[in-house]
């Protein structure tokens, strides 16, 4: 099968690669972009480990082909932290012991980003339903639910504080995840330094 040239943006960086049309987006992100934070559990849409944001919405990256994401803006788990400073949702997972082996965590985090954007003040039941598309074999979910509730409070407090001090206007009520920032394209995939361009990243959550 002939290779296709594919250009897409992940966490604000442009990647160009060549792949057969049958290569899944998840494999392209891991193998061609060198971003192995996105995990593959089932590869048929059930476990949620491969969840990423495409143009701001969660998708299963195992159920798309890389060719389909041509021109798309993607965010993976690597795009959440600001250097060594964790995103508030990541921090909440850490604080509440919401991971054990961590295999499922990237998918849970990306799901939580969209979920709290849509529903900044969820009830426990809503949290459980919002996370139902992600499977975890270790934690028993209790601490993940606690972490999401805690992240919701942190983010709400932060956006309240931001409103009062009238600093950088967030585009959405909670601004859980700032829109991917624009940078110059860096074609090299796996040799790219891990945090290239990260300093320019606009932070969304509160500084901790």
């Amino acid at each position, binding site marked *: 099968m002939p290779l*296709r040239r594919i250009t897409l943006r992940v966490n604000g960086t442009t990647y160009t690669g060549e792949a057969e049309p049958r290569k899944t987006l998840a494999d392209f992100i891991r193998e061609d972009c060198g971003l192995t934070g996105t995990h593959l559990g089932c590869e048929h849409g059930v476990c949620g480990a491969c969840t990423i944001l495409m143009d701001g919405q969660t998708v299963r990256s195992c*159920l798309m082909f890389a*060719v389909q994401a041509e021109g798309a803006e993607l965010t993976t788990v690597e795009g959440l932290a600001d250097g060594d400073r964790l995103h508030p949702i990541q921090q909440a997972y850490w604080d509440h012991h919401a991971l054990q082996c961590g295999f499922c965590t990237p998918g849970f985090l990306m799901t939580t980003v969209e979920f709290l954007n849509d529903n900044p003040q969820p009830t426990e039941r809503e949290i459980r339903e919002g996370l*139902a598309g992600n499977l975890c074999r270790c934690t028993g979910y209790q601490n993940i639910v606690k972490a999401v509730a805690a992240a919701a409070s942190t983010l709400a407090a932060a956006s309240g504080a931001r409103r009062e001090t009238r600093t950088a206007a967030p585009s959405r009520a909670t601004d859980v995840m700032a829109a991917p920032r624009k940078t110059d394209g860096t074609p090299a995939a796996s040799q790219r330094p891990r945090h290239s361009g990260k300093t320019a990243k606009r932070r969304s959550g509160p500084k901790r």
Partner: protein
Amino acid sequence: MKPAPFEYHCPRTVDEGTALLAEYGDDAKVLAGGQSLVPLMNMRLARPANLIDINRIESLAYIRDDGRTLRIGALTRQRATERAPQVSERCPLLRDALRLVGHAQIRNRGTIGGSIAHADPAAELTAILVALDGEVTARGPKGTRVIAARDLFVSYLTTSLDPRELLTEVCFPALPAGAGWSWMEIARRHGEFALAGVGVVLAARGGTIATARIGLTGVGPTPVRPAEAERLLAGRSPSEDLWKGAAEAVRAAVTPDGDIHASAEYRTHVAGVLTQRALREAWERVREAA
């Protein structure tokens, strides 16, 4: 690499899409949201030689209200549909059922047309289309045709669409003014395929039921429209006994298979219980609207 190799085509217009389908027909599969097709390809249960990706045919994503019917473009995402104000207003049954189709991550990609064309025996949308007497529009080498829901679903994962036809539009008739509705289903986990599910619409005249519409999923190879139960309800005053009678008629109308998730007896029983609950909720909504 998970799926077998295929030739990838990415039409931008319906004409390009139907031309590709006319050319590759039996050797091709349409790729919409991919939430059913790609799992099958990853498991190599489906190995199409040609994949016709319709995701860049922007003209296929829309929701129009023509006064009587919601006309939904085949490529409209399930998530966009569940959030559309017209859908809440004109067909809240569809909105409520969509919220139980998989998970948000699935519905962000999954399409209305894909769910109908895939015809999973436990899909929510197929049962609703049948209950409402909806229809679909398809375009193929012989032109455009409209197919009524009752003529569309043939068997497990099988519709009367020709492999050379592209499904372009799905039409859900709006609920009558003042009607009550309810979607009820049972699944092992929120968002999973239903073991059994039922959609109900009750239109009222004064204190009595003018017409009842019922559609069931998960209880047979195709969605079930229990005609006897609907007849039993029409023209009657609501009561617990009436709901119970309708539930019995539903149990008599369904022919589920048992599998590892639930036995046939369980599904039959639950179909009746869900019908009773759905009728109760739908009638409460009639009273609230009055």
